[in-house]
C-alpha cells in the first residue's frame, strides 16, 4: 500500500481526543444517589435482556477508531502499489505466447492473450520515468522482445505485436533469461512477472528473483488431438492413428472426421469421460499416382481452443528403402535377395565392411544395415540396424565368455519382432555370455542369459542376435525368416527420411534439397519468396503456425509439409493455481500488473459501513 498524500495521515490525530474521551468516559462520574438498589435492579434487568451489553462500549470505541483510521487512509490517498514505487525499478515481464493463450475464456469473450496484452500495456503506462521494463516472450523457446527500457512507445509496440503461436509453452529458458538479466542489474531489486495461464511443460528452474505469477484463463473445457500418426508400409494400406484427449471435466462426445483432399473419407464417433483419452484408427486406400495427398483429421464442433482440433497429414507415395548386408563372406542363413523379399520396397545389397564404410562416407541414404558376423568401429547414422553374430559398439554389451548348448527358457511372444515365432525347438551349439544386458530388452532368453536382444544405442535401438545362426538349427526353422520379416517391419516402420514425415511438430526447420528460386506458402495462404542459403538449400524457420507449408522450387513440383502442435500440455488449458520454480511455489495472483489503485472510495465506503454498524448498535441499546 502506498500513500500518495502522507500528510493526510494527520487525520489520525483525531484518535487522541477519541481515546481521551473514551478514557474519560470509562472513568465514570461518581454520582451519589439516595439509594442504589433500585438502579441495581434496573440494570440487572437490562443486562438480562441484552446479550452484548458488556462489550458494547469497547466495541463502539473500536468502531469509531476504525472509522477514523479509514478516513485518515482515504485522506492520505492510500492506494494499492502494485507496480509503482518510490525507488526506480526494473521489471521483467515474461509473457506466454503459446497456443493455449489463444483460448477465448476471459471476460467479454476476450482471449487470454488479449488480456495479457492489456495487463502489459497497463504496466507500461504505469512506469515512472526512472523505471525500466523488459519484455520476454516464450513458447517453445524464449525471445527477448524488448530489453530494459523506459521507452513506453517501444514497449507498447512490442506488446501489441504479441500473438499466440502454435507452439508449446516452455518457460524454463525464459525464466533463466530473466534471471540472468536481473543479475546484470546491480543496484536494483529485480522483479519478474510471469504472465501466463500456467499450462506449461517441463520443470521450471529456481531463480533468485522476486517472481509474481499473473494467471490468465478461467476454463478447462477443451478437447484436442494430442497424437496423429500415419503408417504407410509398402504393400499395405495406409493407416491413420489419432489420439484425442478430453482435458475438461465433463464427458465428451464429438465426431472425428478424416478428409482426403478436402473430401470426407471416414468418420468416428468419439466419447470419453473428462480427463481421458480416446483413440481412433482409419484405414485408407492406397494413394494413386506419385503426388502426395493431403489428409486432414478434424474434431467436429467447437470448444475453447479450436486450434487443436485439426491436424494435417501428408500421405506420400511409398519410397523404396535401401539396405546393406555387411559381411566378410556369404553365409547360408542371410542372403540379400531373400532379405529384400521379406519387406516390400526394400532393396538390400550385400557389401563388404570396407565397401559399407565407403558408402556411409559418401552420404548415400541407407535405411537398413544388417551386420552379419562383423561390427563397425562406430555406429553409422542409419536408423535400422541388425547385428547377427556380432555386438554393436557403444551398446554396453560385452562378451565375457561362451556357453555350449544353452537351453532356451523363454521368449517375448507379444513383441512385434518375435510374434508368432517358436523358439522352443532351437538348438544352439554355442552362444556368448553377455554382460551389460540390463538396459536391453531380452527377446529370447536362455539358461546362460539372453541371446536375442533389443538394445538401446545413442539415438535409436538395434536388434542383436548374439549367437551365430550357422552354429544352430535356427536357419532351418520357420522361426528364422519369420523373425527376420518381423524385425524388418518393426525397424523400418519408424524410418523416415528427411521430408517424408507425414506430420512434423511446429517450430521445426524445413529444408529443401535444391537451390534456385524458391517460394513458401504458409498455412494462412501467405506466400514468401526466398533465396537459397550459402549451401544452396533453402531453410524455412518460421514454422510457428500449424498447418500445411508448401515449398515450391522453380521447375519442381511443390512439396507439402504438414506441421502440427501435438502437445498434451497445450490441450490441457486449465489455468494453473501456482507455478513451481524448483521447490518454490508461486501462487497465482490475477491482474497483478494493474497500476496503482486509489483506495479512497472503498475506504470511505467501509467507513460509512462502520458508522452505520455503530449507529445500529447504538440504537439497539435503546
Amino acid at each position, binding site marked *: 500500500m502506498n500513500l500518495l498524500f502522507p500528510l493526510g495521515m494527520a487525520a489520525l490525530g483525531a484518535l487522541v481526543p477519541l481515546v481521551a474521551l473514551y478514557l474519560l468516559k470509562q472513568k465514570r462520574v461518581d454520582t451519589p444517589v*439516595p439509594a442504589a438498589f433500585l438502579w441495581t*435492579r*434496573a440494570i440487572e434487568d*437490562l443486562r438480562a435482556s441484552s446479550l452484548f451489553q458488556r462489550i458494547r462500549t469497547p466495541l463502539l470505541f473500536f468502531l469509531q477508531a476504525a472509522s477514523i483510521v479509514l478516513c485518515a487512509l482515504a485522506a492520505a490517498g492510500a492506494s494499492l502499489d502494485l507496480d509503482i514505487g518510490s525507488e526506480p525499478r526494473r521489471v521483467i515481464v515474461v509473457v506466454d505466447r503459446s497456443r493455449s493463450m489463444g483460448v477465448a475464456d476471459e471476460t467479454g469473450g476476450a482471449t487470454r492473450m488479449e488480456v495479457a496484452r492489456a495487463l502489459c500495456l497497463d504496466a507500461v503506462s504505469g512506469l515512472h520515468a526512472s523505471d525500466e521494463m523488459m519484455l520476454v516472450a516464450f513458447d517453445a523457446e524464449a525471445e527477448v522482445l524488448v530489453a530494459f527500457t523506459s521507452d513506453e512507445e517501444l514497449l507498447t509496440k512490442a506488446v501489441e505485436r504479441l500473438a499466440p503461436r502454435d507452439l508449446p509453452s516452455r518457460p524454463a529458458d525464459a525464466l533463466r533469461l530473466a534471471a540472468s538479466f536481473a543479475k546484470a542489474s546491480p543496484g536494483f531489486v529485480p522483479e519478474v512477472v510471469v504472465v501466463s495461464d500456467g499450462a506449461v511443460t517441463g520443470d521450471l528452474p529456481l531463480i533468485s528473483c522476486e517472481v509474481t505469477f499473473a494467471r490468465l484463463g478461467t476454463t478447462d473445457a477443451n478437447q484436442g488431438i494430442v497424437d496423429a500418426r500415419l503408417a504407410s508400409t509398402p504393400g499395405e494400406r495406409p493407416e491413420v492413428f489419432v489420439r484425442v484427449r478430453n482435458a475438461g471435466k465433463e464427458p465428451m462426445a464429438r465426431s472425428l472426421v478424416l478428409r482426403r483432399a478436402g473430401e470426407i473419407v471416414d468418420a468416428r464417433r468419439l466419447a470419453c469421460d473428462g480427463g481421458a483419452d480416446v483413440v481412433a484408427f482409419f484405414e485408407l486406400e492406397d494413394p494413386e499416382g506419385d503426388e502426395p495427398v493431403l489428409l486432414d483429421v478434424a474434431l467436429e464442433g467447437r470448444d475453447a481452443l479450436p486450434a487443436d482440433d485439426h491436424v494435417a497429414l501428408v500421405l506420400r507415395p511409398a519410397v523404396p528403402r535401401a539396405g546393406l548386408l555387411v559381411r566378410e563372406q556369404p553365409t547360408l542363413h542371410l542372403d540379400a535377395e531373400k532379405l529384400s523379399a521379406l519387406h516390400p520396397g526394400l532393396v538390400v545389397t550385400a557389401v563388404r565392411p570396407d565397401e559399407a564404410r565407403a558408402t556411409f562416407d559418401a552420404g548415400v541414404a541407407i535405411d537398413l544395415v544388417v551386420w552379419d558376423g562383423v561390427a563397425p568401429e562406430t555406429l553409422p547414422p542409419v536408423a535400422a540396424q541388425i547385428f547377427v553374430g556380432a555386438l554393436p559398439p557403444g551398446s554396453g554389451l560385452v562378451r565375457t565368455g561362451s556357453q555350449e548348448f544353452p537351453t532356451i527358457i523363454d521368449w517375448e511372444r507379444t513383441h512385434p519382432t518375435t510374434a508368432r515365432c517358436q523358439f522352443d525347438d532351437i538348438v544352439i551349439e554355442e552362444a556368448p555370455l553377455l554382460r551389460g544386458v540390463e538396459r536391453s530388452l531380452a527377446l529370447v532368453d536362455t539358461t546362460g542369459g539372453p541371446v536375442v536382444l533389443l538394445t538401446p544405442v545413442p539415438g535409436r535401438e538395434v536388434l542383436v542376435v548374439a549367437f551365430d545362426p550357422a552354429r544352430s538349427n535356427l536357419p532351418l526353422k520357420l522361426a528364422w525368416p519369420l523373425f527376420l520379416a518381423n524385425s524388418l517391419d518393426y525397424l523400418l516402420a519408424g524410418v523416415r527420411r528427411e521430408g517424408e514425415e507425414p506430420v512434423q511438430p511446429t517450430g521445426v526447420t524445413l529444408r529443401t534439397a535444391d537451390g534456385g528460386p524458391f517460394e513458401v506458402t504458409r498455412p494462412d495462404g501467405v506466400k514468401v519468396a526466398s533465396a537459397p542459403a550459402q549451401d544452396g538449400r533453402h531453410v524455412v524457420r518460421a514454422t510457428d503456425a500449424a498447418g500445411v507449408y508448401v515449398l515450391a522450387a522453380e521447375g519442381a513440383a511443390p512439396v507439402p509439409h504438414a506441421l502440427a502442435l501435438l502437445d498434451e500440455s497445450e490441450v490441457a488449458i486449465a489455468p494453473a493455481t501456482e507455478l513451481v520454480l524448483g521447490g518454490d511455489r508461486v501462487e497465482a495472483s490475477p491482474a497483478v500488473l494493474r497500476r496503482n489503485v486509489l483506495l479512497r472510495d472503498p475506504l470511505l465506503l467501509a467507513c460509512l459501513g462502520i458508522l452505520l454498524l455503530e449507529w445500529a448498535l447504538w440504537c439497539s441499546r435503546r
Partner: protein
Amino acid sequence: MALLDEEFLARLERLEIVSRRLRRGIQRGERRSLRRGSSVEFADHRPYGAGDDLRFLDWNMYARLDRLMTKLFLDEEDLAVHLVLDRSASMDFGDPTKALVAKRLLAAIGFVALVGLNRVSLWSPGEGGDVELTHLRGPRASERLFAALERAPVGGAAGLDEPLRRFVGTRRPRGVLLAVSDFLHPDGSWEHLRTLVRGGLETYCLRVLTPHEEEPVIEGDLRLLDSESDAAVDVSVTPALLRRYAAAREDYDRRLAEFCRSRQIVLIPTRTDASVETLVLEVLRRKGLLR
C-alpha cells in the same frame, strides 16, 4: 431560617390533632377521655355516694324522682403525639432536602399538637446520637421542639428499622405516631412498621421523595454511589435503563402501599417540591390527621 413562618403558625393554631380512637391520657387536656372528668360535656348519671362533690348533684332529678343522683361529665385529657424523624443520609437529597421538608412537617404537626395541649415527643435516631424530646406540652414548648428539629444533623447510615423496634419495645408509646422518612430499604422489608401497629399506635407515615427520585435527570456513564452504604452501581444511562428504573421504583412503591394498607398504616406520599402548607392544611386534613 425558621422552620415555619408566623402566618403559617397562625393558621395552624386553628387546627387540632384528630385521633381515630379515644385514649387514656396522663394530664387534663382538651381531648375527651375515656375517664369521667370535670369537663362541661355531660356523660351520665350515677347514684350519689358519700364523699361525692355536692356540686354535681342533679337537683332537677331529685325534685322529680326524689333520688339523689350525681351528674358525670367527660373528662378532657391530653393526647400523646409521637414525632419520628428519619435523618439518615438518604434524606439529605433534593432541593429543599427531604430532611428539611420532614422537619417542617414535624414542626407543623408538633405545633398543632402543642397548641391543643397534647403531649408531644420527638424522637430521631441517627448520626450524633438520638435526638429525643419528651413530655412537651403547651404552645410554649414549641420553641424547644423547633430548636431541636433545626439542630438535628442529617447523615449516616442509620435507618429507622432497628431503632424503631427498640423505641416501641422500650417506650411502649400510645397515641398517634407520625414518622417522616423516604422509606427506602434495599431489601424491601418494612417489618419494623408492623411493631407500631401491634403497639396500638395510630400510625401515619409521611413518605418524602425528591422529584429526581421519581424521574431521574441523569445521563452518560455514571457510577451511582449509595448514600447509606458502600454499594456502587456502574450505569450507562439510556432511555431503556430509565424505563427499567421507573418500573422498579413503581413496583417498590406499590408493594410499600400494599404493606401499609394491609396494616392500617396511613401512608401519605409527598415530594420535596410540594408545599408544606398545602400538605398540612389540605392533605393531612383530608387524611384525617388534622381538622
